[in-house]
C-alpha cells in the first residue's frame, strides 16, 4: 500500500511556506521603509489626519496638512498669540511703522539658528520677502500678504525694513514663512516649481520652527523631529508624526486602541462615538470655518468678459436673497453636524469676536416668506410645480456637491429638499474637489456647496469677493483665481481698498462690518453653517496642549504652533507610557498569534486524523 508519508506531506507544505516567505520577505521589508525602531525612550506624538499634504514645498502646498507642516518648520516675524490672536513676537522682538507709513522696521531676536546650525538672521527674512515680491510662482500662496510691500532690506543681521507703498494693517500680521536663504538660493525660478522639499533621514529639512521633517511617505505618514535650535526652547516631545487615514472610522478606532494620540477633522458621528471613552478627551472647537451654498452671480473674467454657462437667472439678487429664507440652517446643523455648529449668517465666524457682525436684517428660515419674495420678484409657479419667470425660463439649476466629503453630500440633499418645497429645482451632481476648482474657474456651474477656513485677519476672506480676483486669461488659457461666485460690486471694492490701508482698529471694524452686510444682502453666498472643529486626544498620554484661542479653540491646525511647543508626555507613565504608545513595534499581539497557531495546528491535526478512517476504507477495498 503506497501512501505519501505524513512527513513528506508536512515537509512539502513547510517547503512551500518557506518559499512563500522567501519570496514575500523582501516585500514585507519594502512594504514600509526602514525606520529607526522606536524602542529607545523616545516620545512620539502621533496625529491622525484624513487629508495628506499635497506638497512639502511652501510655495506649492495648499492643503491644511501642508500648512501645518510649514508652520512647524518655518517661523514668521510675528505670531498670533494663543490666548486671543493678539500679535506676539515671532522671530521679531519688536516692530514699528514709520510715521509716514512708508515702511515697517522689525528687530530680529539675536542668536537664532536654523536646525542645521546656520545662523538665522534678518538676511533670511529679506531674502524671503524679496523672493516672493520678485517671483511669479511664489506669489500664489503669499502674494496677498505682501501686496503693500515694495522691497525688503536687511541693513544688518538683526534689522529688517519692509518698504510699503501705502499704510497697511496686514504687514505686521503673520502670513509669510521665512525660509533659509542658504538652502533656497540654489533653487531657481524653474526648479522651485517641482522642488519637493521633503526631508529624509539622511538629509532632514532645514527648519527654523519647532520641528523639521525627517521622513515622508506619500499617502501614509509624515515624521517630524524636534528642532534643538528652536529659539523658544527645544520641544519636549522628540517626534511628531502625522498618520494618514482613509476614513474617520478607522482613525477613531486607531485612537481608541492607542495607535495614534490625536485625531483631527472627525465628523460628527465618529466624534460622538469617542465622547465617553476612557482616557480620551474630546474637544469641540468654536467655529472658524463655514460652509456655504455659492451662486454663479455672472461668471466673467477680471476684465469683464463673460465666461462659462451659468444660468442668467441667478444674476438676480432678489432671487438669491429669497432662497436664503428657504433654507432651515438650524435643522442642517442638527442633522448634519449633530448640533456641533451654529447656523451661518455673515462672513466672519463668531470665533473672531473682533470682526464678526450680526446682520441687520436676519434672513431666518421662513418658506412662506421665500415664496412671497419669489412671487414678488416675478417667478410664478408653473404647472409642474417649478417656478418660471415671465419668459418661461424655469428655476431649474445645477447643484454641485463634493464627492470627497460626506457632509457635502448630505448638505446638498438638504438644500435640494428645501428648494423643492418653494418651487425651485436643484439637479444634483457630485464632483471631486479638484474638478470643482476647475469647473468654478471656467464658470461652468450654477450653484455649488463648499466651505472656507477663515483666518484671524479678515483681509484674505474679504478679498475673495473683489472684481480683481475673478478668473483671468493668460496666453489664451482661462486660469482660476480665488473668486468662486464672481461677485463684482464697485462699491464693495471701494470699501475693500479702504480697509486694506486703515490701521485704526475701530474704523477698520466699521468698514469690514459694512462689507459683510453688503455680502449678506446681495447673497453671492448663502452661508449655511459655521461648524465646530472636532478633535480627540489621549489625555492619559499627553498633556499641555494649548487651545487657540482660549478656552476652546483647536489644539492643532491653529494659526501657530503653541501645542507643539508646549506638549509633554504624561509623566506618571513615562517610559512605559510613551514608548508603549504603539508607534513602536513592541506591541506584538501574542494572543492572536498563539491563537492562530493553535487553530493552524488543530487544522493540521484534523487533517492528519482523517487518515485512519480512510485507511479503514482502503482496507475494505
Amino acid at each position, binding site marked *: 500500500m503506497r501512501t505519501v508519508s505524513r512527513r513528506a506531506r508536512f515537509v512539502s507544505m513547510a517547503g512551500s511556506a518557506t518559499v512563500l516567505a522567501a519570496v514575500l520577505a523582501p516585500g514585507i521589508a519594502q512594504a514600509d521603509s526602514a525606520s529607526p525602531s522606536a524602542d529607545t525612550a523616545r516620545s512620539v506624538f502621533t496625529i491622525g489626519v484624513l487629508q495628506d499634504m499635497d506638497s512639502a514645498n511652501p510655495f506649492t502646498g495648499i492643503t491644511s496638512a501642508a500648512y501645518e507642516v510649514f508652520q512647524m518648520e518655518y517661523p514668521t516675524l510675528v505670531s498670533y498669540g494663543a490666548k486671543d490672536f493678539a500679535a506676539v513676537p515671532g522671530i521679531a522682538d519688536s516692530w514699528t511703522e514709520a510715521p509716514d507709513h512708508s515702511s515697517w522696521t522689525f528687530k530680529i531676536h539675536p542668536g537664532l539658528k536654523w536646525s542645521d546650525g546656520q545662523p538665522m538672521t534678518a538676511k533670511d527674512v529679506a531674502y524671503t520677502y524679496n523672493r516672493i515680491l520678485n517671483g511669479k510662482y511664489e506669489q500664489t500662496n503669499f502674494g496677498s500678504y505682501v501686496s503693500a510691500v515694495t522691497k525688503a532690506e536687511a541693513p544688518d543681521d538683526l534689522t529688517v525694513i519692509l518698504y510699503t507703498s501705502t499704510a497697511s494693517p496686514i504687514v505686521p500680521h503673520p502670513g509669510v514663512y521665512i525660509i533659509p536663504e542658504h538652502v533656497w538660493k540654489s533653487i531657481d525660478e524653474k526648479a522651485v516649481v517641482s522642488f519637493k522639499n521633503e526631508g529624509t533621514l539622511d538629509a532632514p529639512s532645514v527648519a527654523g520652527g519647532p520641528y523639521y521633517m525627517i521622513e515622508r511617505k506619500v499617502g501614509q505618514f509624515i515624521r517630524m523631529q524636534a528642532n534643538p535650535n528652536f529659539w523658544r526652547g527645544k520641544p519636549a516631545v522628540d517626534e511628531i508624526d502625522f498618520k494618514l487615514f482613509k476614513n474617520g472610522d478607522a482613525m477613531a478606532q486607531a485612537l481608541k486602541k492607542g495607535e495614534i494620540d490625536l485625531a483631527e477633522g472627525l465628523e460628527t458621528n465618529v466624534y460622538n462615538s469617542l465622547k465617553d471613552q476612557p482616557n480620551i478627551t474630546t474637544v469641540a472647537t468654536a467655529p472658524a470655518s463655514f460652509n456655504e451654498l455659492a451662486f454663479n452671480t455672472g461668471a466673467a473674467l477680471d476684465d469683464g468678459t463673460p465666461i462659462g454657462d451659468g444660468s442668467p437667472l441667478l444674476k438676480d439678487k432678489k432671487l438669491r436673497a429669497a432662497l436664503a429664507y428657504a433654507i432651515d440652517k438650524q435643522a442642517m446643523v442638527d442633522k448634519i453636524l449633530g448640533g456641533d455648529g451654529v447656523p451661518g449668517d455673515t462672513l466672519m465666524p463668531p470665533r473672531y469676536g473682533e470682526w464678526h457682525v450680526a446682520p441687520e436684517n436676519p434672513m431666518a428660515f421662513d418658506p412662506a416668506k421665500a415664496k412671497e419674495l419669489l412671487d414678488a420678484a416675478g417667478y410664478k409657479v408653473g404647472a409642474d410645480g417649478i417656478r418660471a419667470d415671465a419668459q418661461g425660463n424655469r428655476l431649474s439649476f445645477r447643484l454641485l456637491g463634493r464627492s470627497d466629503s460626506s457632509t457635502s453630500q448630505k448638505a446638498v*440633499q438638504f438644500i435640494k429638499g428645501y428648494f423643492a418645497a418653494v418651487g425651485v429645482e436643484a439637479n444634483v451632481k457630485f464632483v471631486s474637489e479638484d474638478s470643482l476648482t476647475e469647473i468654478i474657474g471656467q464658470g461652468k456651474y450654477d450653484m455649488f456647496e463648499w466651505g472656507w477656513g477663515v483666518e484671524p485677519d479678515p483681509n484674505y476672506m474679504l478679498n475673495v469677493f473683489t472684481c480683481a480676483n475673478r478668473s483671468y486669461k493668460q496666453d489664451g488659457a482661462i486660469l482660476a483665481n480665488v473668486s468662486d461666485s464672481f461677485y463684482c460690486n464697485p462699491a464693495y471694492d471701494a470699501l475693500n481698498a479702504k480697509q486694506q490701508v486703515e490701521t485704526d482698529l475701530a474704523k477698520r471694524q466699521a468698514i469690514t462690518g459694512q462689507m459683510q452686510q453688503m455680502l449678506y444682502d446681495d447673497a453671492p453666498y448663502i452661508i449655511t453653517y459655521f461648524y465646530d472643529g472636532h478633535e480627540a486626544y489621549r489625555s492619559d498620554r499627553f498633556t499641555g496642549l494649548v487651545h487657540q484661542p482660549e478656552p476652546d479653540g483647536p489644539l492643532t491646525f491653529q494659526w501657530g504652533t503653541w501645542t507643539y511647543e508646549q506638549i509633554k508626555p504624561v509623566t506618571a507613565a513615562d517610559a512605559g507610557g510613551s514608548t508603549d504608545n504603539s508607534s513602536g513595534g513592541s506591541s506584538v499581539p501574542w494572543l492572536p498569534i498563539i491563537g492562530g497557531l493553535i487553530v493552524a495546528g488543530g487544522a493540521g491535526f484534523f487533517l492528519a486524523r482523517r487518515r485512519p478512517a480512510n485507511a479503514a476504507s482502503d482496507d475494505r477495498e
Partner: protein
Amino acid sequence: MTMTQPAIDDPNAASLGARDVVKARRKASRQRFAASFRQNRSGMLGLTMLLTFIAVAIAAFFIPASSLDVTQVTADPFLPPSLQWPLGTDDSGRSVLLLVAKGAQISLLVGFAATMLSMFIGTSVGIVSGHYRGMTGGVLDRFTDWFLVIPYLPLAIVLATVLGRSLLNIIIVIGVTSWPGTARLIRAQTMSVTARPYLERSKALGAGNLHQMWKHVLPNVMPLVLANTTLAVSISILSETTLSFLGLGDPTAISWGSILEQGFSAGAISQGAWWYLAAPGICVVLTVLAFNLIGRAFEDILDPRQETA
C-alpha cells in the same frame, strides 16, 4: 423523447407541417424542464428568495417620498432596530428598512438590464464567431479574448470614470465588461451544434447563414444561454454593488451598494451601527445566492453528465 403526432384523420392534417411538430416538441420539452426544476430543491429555494425580493421591490413603489427625504424625516439618526424601526435608522434618521426596500428596485433593475445588454452582445458575438469559422469568426474570437483577459474591476472603473456617473452609464459599463464570458461559452456551444448532422442537412437544403443561426443554432444554445443568464445576473448585481460602493454609481439613486457606501462614510462602523451595514449586505448576498442556486439548478438539468456517476 416522445413526439406528439398530428391526428391523421384531421381534415387539416396536410397543413400541419414541420413547424407545428417542432413547436409541440419544444412545448413538451419546456414542460419537462419545468417539472425537473420543481424537483430541484435548491433551485426552488432560490426561486422563492428571488420572488420575495421582486415583491419587495414592487412594494417599494408605495413608499411615500417624504419617508426618504432627509429634510422631512423626524427620527433620530443611528437608532438600533426596534419595533418602530425594524432595521433601525440611518445617519439622517431614515428607516433602513425602507431604504433597503427602495434599494431593491435599482439593484434588481440594473442587474437585469446590464445582464440583458451583456447577454445580447455576448450571445450575438458567440454565435457569429462560432458559426463563421473563417476571418470574421477569427477576428471576433480574438476580440473576445482581449476583453476576457482585461481584469474586470479596473476596466469598469476606467469606463465609469470616462462615461460619468449615471444609472444608464452603470448599466452600460457592467454590460460592456461582462459579455466576453458569455461569448466564449456560446461560441463553444455553437461550434458543437454546428457540427451536428441536421445542420449540415439544412445547409445542403440551401438554408442561408442567418436562417441557420436564427432557427437552428439559437434555439439549441438557448438552454445554456438561460443558465448562463441567471449566473450573469448575480455577477451584475455584485458589480453594481461594488461600483456604487466605490462611488461610481448614480449619486441620487438608492441602491444596496449606495447604502453601503453611505454607511461606510458616515461612520457606521465606529458608531456600532451594524444594522446599517448588515441589512443591505445580507440582501445582496441572498439575491445573488438566489440567482446562483437557480442557475446551478438549470445547469444540473441541462447537462446530463453532471448526473451522479
